[in-house]
C-alpha cells in the first residue's frame, strides 16, 4: 500500500459519497418543491431555525419520516461526512504504512473535526 494507491481508493470513495449525498438532496428538493405552498419565499431575515433541522438526531428523525427538508439536511450531513471519512481513511492508511508521525498528524485532524461536529448533536 503506497500513498498513491491509497489516495486513488479514497478519491473514488469520496466521489461515490458525493453522488449519494447529491441524490439525497435532489430527492428531498423535489419533494419540497412539490409540496411547497404557492406563496412567496423571503430569506432576508436570519432566524436560527428549528432543532429538527439543526441537529443530527433531529435531521435523522425528520428524514426517517420522509419530510422534505429533513431529507435535504440528511444529504448535506452525508456530504459533510465525506471529508471526515477521508481523514479517517488516511489515519488507517498511514497506520498500515507504519508511518507513526503521520498517523498521529491525521488523528489530530480527526479529533478537531470530531470536536466541531459534536457541536451539532
Amino acid at each position, binding site marked *: 500500500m503506497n500513498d498513491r494507491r491509497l489516495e486513488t481508493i479514497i478519491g473514488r470513495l469520496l466521489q461515490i459519497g458525493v453522488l449519494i449525498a447529491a441524490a439525497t438532496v435532489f430527492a428531498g428538493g423535489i419533494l419540497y*418543491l412539490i409540496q411547497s405552498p404557492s406563496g412567496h*419565499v423571503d430569506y432576508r431575515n436570519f432566524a436560527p431555525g428549528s432543532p429538527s433541522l439543526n441537529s443530527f438526531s433531529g435531521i435523522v428523525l425528520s428524514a426517517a419520516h420522509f419530510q422534505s427538508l429533513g431529507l435535504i439536511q440528511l444529504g*448535506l450531513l452525508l456530504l459533510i461526512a465525506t471529508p471526515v471519512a477521508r*481523514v479517517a481513511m488516511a489515519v488507517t492508511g498511514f497506520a498500515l504504512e507504519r508511518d507513526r508521525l503521520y498517523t498521529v498528524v491525521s488523528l489530530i485532524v480527526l479529533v478537531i473535526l470530531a470536536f466541531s461536529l459534536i457541536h451539532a448533536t
Partner: protein
Amino acid sequence: MTAWEFSAVVWGLSFLAGFLGALTGLGGGVIVVPALALALGVNIKYAIGASLVSVIATSSGAAAAYVREGFSNIRIGMFLEIATTLGAILGAFLAARVGTHALAIIFGLVLIQAAYHSFKGAPEGDQPIESDSLSRRLRLASSYPVDGKAQEYGVRNVPAGFGLMFGAGTLSGLLGIGSGAVKVIAMDRVMRIPFKVSTTTSNFMIGVTAAASAGIYLSRGFIDPRVAMPVMLGVLAGALLGAKVLVHARVRTLRTVFAVVILALAIEMIVSGLTGKV
C-alpha cells in the same frame, strides 16, 4: 418569488458560479455568496452556510481526478490541515457573533484580494529547492510529474506557512468560502512548493477545512435546506462541467474577466455593508 422560481434562479446562478470557479481555480463560493446576497436579497448568513456545503461538494467530488494527475501531496495537506481546521472553528464561532453588515464588508475585502490574485495568474516556472531541517524531519518533500518524468521538490518555511494556513481556515469558517487563494499563497509563495502541487493540495484541503466549520454552522442555523439545496446542486454540477472543459478553455482571458467581475462584486458588497443594505 415562489419556491420554484427561487430554486431555479439560485440553481442557475450557482451553476454559473461553480463553472467559473472551477475554470479559474478560485472556487464557486466567492461568486455565489455575493450573488445570493446582492441579487436575491438572501441573508448573508444563509448565503455563506449554503456556500460552505457546496465547497465540500466540489472538493470531495474532484478528489479522484486530482489524485490521477499525481500532483497533490497528502502529507503536506494533512499536516497543514491541523492549522486550517483550528482556524475554521474559530472562524465559524466568529461568524455567529459578527453582524451581517460587518460580514459583508469583510467579504468584500477578501474579494478584492481574490480579484488581484486572479488577475496576476500563475507564476512562471518553479525552481525546485532543498528542504530546510524542519521540513526534512516532517518528511514533506516529494516529487511530481513534469513532462512525464518525476521532478523532486523540497519544502521550506513550515512555521510561516502553518500560520498563514490558520488564517486561511479562519476566513473559510467566517465567510463560508474555500479560501483556496490564500492556501495556494501559503504553499506556493511561502513554503516554496511547486504551483501545481500547491493548487491540487489546496483543493484536497478545502473540503476538510470546510467540514470543521460545518457542524457549528449547522447548529447555529446557517444551513437552511431551502437555500442550500439549489446552491449545492448547482455549484456541484457547474464545477464538474468546468473541470471537463478546463483543458480547452483560454484561461488567461477568462481570469482577467473574472477578476473584473469579482472586483465589481467586492465594491458592491462593501458599499452595501456600509449602507446597511446587506
